[in-house]
């Protein structure tokens, strides 16, 4: 079910802060009902892009439309169509969860019984019914994020921006939030623009991923397309006896090019996907006993490495 | 003993460095005494014409002594804020873990408070002299005045340190400030004791700070008065609040 005919489109979108070009001309297109993962290290330009697309920051150049409205010229229409949970869980510690929702609903012009029903339903949906009348300062990080999501959804937006929604959350809260975001897109047709620095998050949630680095999109596609660009899986074998490492090396070289492996193991990047059974059969034929055989599928980190020359982790530390 | 000194000097060095690197920590404690001095000495000087006003050194000197003592006490209290902040940020816990002699921690904060106030005192004195303050006392008298102020600075620090170490939060700030503020303003701030009337006269007569303030004013006009009593009271306060701070440190140690 798709609720909006228009998603997000940016052409040459730019933002300059004095001497720093935070976003250096990006082109992207997010289809209605799609979850788009915007992946990159801290400072890559993710949040700046979100701020421009949500009308909080005027672009320095280029053009973008959200839900069919120009972000630079039709700010109020864009805001009416979108919900956003920005990087900071922007909550007032002295208000309760229900009071936050009431304020947000009222500012969107929702009143009376409709507002009451909506607040109850959203609190229930994000699992905060029992905590709804508690002040937010007593909430855990996960509860704050869930309330943040409920606030973003109060006016039933067709497009949802989530700026690093799971940063700092424990694995359980993270999974719960992923489930809810997935459900919103799947069941309600909400278009989701999700920024993240977690590869796993983009991999699990996103239909398509854009990788941004130094303000530019360096790769875009579905997670499997991107990994396929990197290519082939790697097989790593640990021989039962360390003396057989040399024989193992000779055997594996028949299946692909040598690549980095743990000490005591040998690894090759396979020439073709179906090669693993052949590797196992060859080991058997050569009577070479393996203590461990590992198959590594290419990850988004490999994609990041291939496109930028750095690992995502390394980019964080820069 | 040497280990206590090492801890104290190390911590004091850190405190003073932090102070110089953060003007926001240094400027307000510097500005407030100057503002008070200008407002009181400048705005209220007509009070010297009130019948019975028997201080002969001029109203600027009369107010200077109060503001000097106030700056000393609040210099100590502001240092107490720093202790509370250190507890909130976890730095103080690291100190408790690593300091071989924990009493050196209080001594370190005390030295830093003194250094910080010394700078304020220099600026305040210069401003007062530029404003035409007359000093009737000799070097020994001034030594007495600044000696009292130094003890007062340490009393303020020890009081605030005791509170900070018990509450371990900057939210205890008003609790550190308010009693000191009240004690100071329940002394003869604007006019000599004899010109006060009603309940404030009764309270001021019993307030130990009254004797310290009057001795300070005696020093600056060159007519020392109640010197032994003032120093005795100041030292007694120092001892009482040293115990208060030490038990506060123990409370912090027990809290883990």
């Amino acid at each position, binding site marked *: 079910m798709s609720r909006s005919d228009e998603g997000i489109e940016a052409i040459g979108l730019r933002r300059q802060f004095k001497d720093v070009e935070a976003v250096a001309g990006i082109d992207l297109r997010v289809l209605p009902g799609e979850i788009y993962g915007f992946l990159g290290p801290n400072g890559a330009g993710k949040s700046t892009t979100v701020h421009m697309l949500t009308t909080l920051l005027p672009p320095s150049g280029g053009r973008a439309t959200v839900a069919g409205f120009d972000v630079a010229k039709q*700010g109020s229409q864009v805001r009416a169509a979108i919900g956003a949970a920005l990087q900071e869980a922007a909550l007032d510690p002295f208000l309760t969860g229900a009071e936050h929702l009431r304020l947000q609903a009222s500012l969107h012009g929702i009143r009376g019984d409709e507002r009451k029903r909506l607040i109850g339903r959203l609190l229930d949906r994000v699992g905060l019914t029992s905590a709804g009348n508690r002040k937010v300062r007593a909430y855990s990080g996960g509860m704050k994020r869930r309330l943040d999501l409920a606030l973003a959804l109060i006016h039933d937006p067709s497009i949802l921006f989530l700026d690093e929604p799971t940063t700092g959350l424990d694995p359980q809260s993270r999974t719960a939030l992923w489930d809810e975001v997935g459900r919103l897109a799947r069941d309600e047709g909400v278009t989701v623009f999700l920024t993240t620095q977690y590869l796993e998050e983009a991999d699990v949630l996103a239909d398509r991923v854009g990788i941004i680095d130094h303000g530019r999109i360096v790769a875009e596609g579905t997670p499997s397309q991107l990994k396929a660009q990197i290519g082939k899986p790697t097989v790593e074998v640990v021989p039962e006896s360390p003396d057989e490492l040399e024989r193992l090396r000779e055997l594996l070289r028949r299946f692909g090019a040598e690549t980095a492996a743990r000490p005591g193991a040998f690894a090759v990047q396979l020439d073709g996907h179906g090669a693993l059974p052949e590797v196992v059969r060859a080991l058997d034929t050569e009577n070479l006993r393996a203590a461990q055989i590992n198959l590594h599928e290419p990850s988004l980190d490999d994609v990041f490495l291939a496109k930028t020359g750095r690992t995502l982790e390394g980019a964080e530390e820069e | 003993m040497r280990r206590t000194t090492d801890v104290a000097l190390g911590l004091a060095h850190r405190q003073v460095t932090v102070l110089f690197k953060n003007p926001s920590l240094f400027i307000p404690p510097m500005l407030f005494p100057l503002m008070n001095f200008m407002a009181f000495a400048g705005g209220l000087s007509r009070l010297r014409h009130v019948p019975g006003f028997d201080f002969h050194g001029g109203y600027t000197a009369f107010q200077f002594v109060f503001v000097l003592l106030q700056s000393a006490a609040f210099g100590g209290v502001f240092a107490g804020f720093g202790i509370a902040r250190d507890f909130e940020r976890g730095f103080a816990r690291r100190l408790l873990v690593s300091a071989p002699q924990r009493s050196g921690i209080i001594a370190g904060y005390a030295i830093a408070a003194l250094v910080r106030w010394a700078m304020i005192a220099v600026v305040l004195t210069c401003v007062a002299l530029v404003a035409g303050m007359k000093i009737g006392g000799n070097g020994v008298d001034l030594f007495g005045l600044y000696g009292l102020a130094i003890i007062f600075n340490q009393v303020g620090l020890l009081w605030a340190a005791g509170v900070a170490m018990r509450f371990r939060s900057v939210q205890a700030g008003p609790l550190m400030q308010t009693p000191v503020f009240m004690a100071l303003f329940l002394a003869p701030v604007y006019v000599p004791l004899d010109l006060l009337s009603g309940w404030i006269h009764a309270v001021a007569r019993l307030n130990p700070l009254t004797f310290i303030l009057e001795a300070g004013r005696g020093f600056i006009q060159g007519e020392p008065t109640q010197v032994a009593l003032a120093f005795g009271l100041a030292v007694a306060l120092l001892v009482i609040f040293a115990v208060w701070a030490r038990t506060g440190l123990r409370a912090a140690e027990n809290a883990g």
Partner: protein
Amino acid sequence: MTQQVWLIAQRSVVRTFRQPGTWIPPLTFPLMLMAVNSNGLRAATHLPGFPTDSFLAFFLPFSFLQGALFASGIAGVDLARDIDTGFLNRLALTPVRGSALLIGQIGGAVGLGALQACVYLSVGLIFGVHIDTGVAGAFLILLLAVLIATGWGTLGLWLALRTGSGEGVQSQFPLLFFATFISSMNLPRNLIEVTWFRDVATINPVSYMIEGLRSLVISGWDAQALLLGFGFSLALIAVSLGLAGRQLKVRMART
């Protein structure tokens, strides 16, 4: 628009009053200062030309001003926190108008200012202050006190919008305190002896705000003092609103 102002103001008031540690000291500190100064400076009433024999009546108006200054600090720090946590961005993503946001945000300061004014006036009356202008004058005192709180509160918002941090707001406060100190808070201007101090107090609008309030307490209906008191208070509101409005546009640069 009215509805939006009401919603933001409601939130501002609720937030302010849910932090007792924030509003109780600013409420009680001026009372303490009033208690000690009204007694400690009573001797000043013996000066020839002093306009009343009750220093409490003379000093009472300063408490309104001091309370307003504290309320201003609260308003500023709270808005700075909203900027820091991104709450302002959240509001910016709703259809709320910038002007509604600004006026509503002042709500907390105005609410606290009104409470302070009622408390200070009540305490003054309990301790024997006679309001020379009667009940009507007392209402006018409350009105002027709220206007003053609004003006200072808006100034606090401007500082918050300009600096974007609570520390930034607080670091500016010594200057505002200084402005209140170099005024006719402790003595009438004609009794201030030091020339430079008297001159600064004469050009300091704070003096006229205090004197407007003071006239209602001790000298009866004084059109000039009232005009100056209300005029400077309204001017402070207008200037602060203008500055804050401009700064809000910079801070909330939504399209």
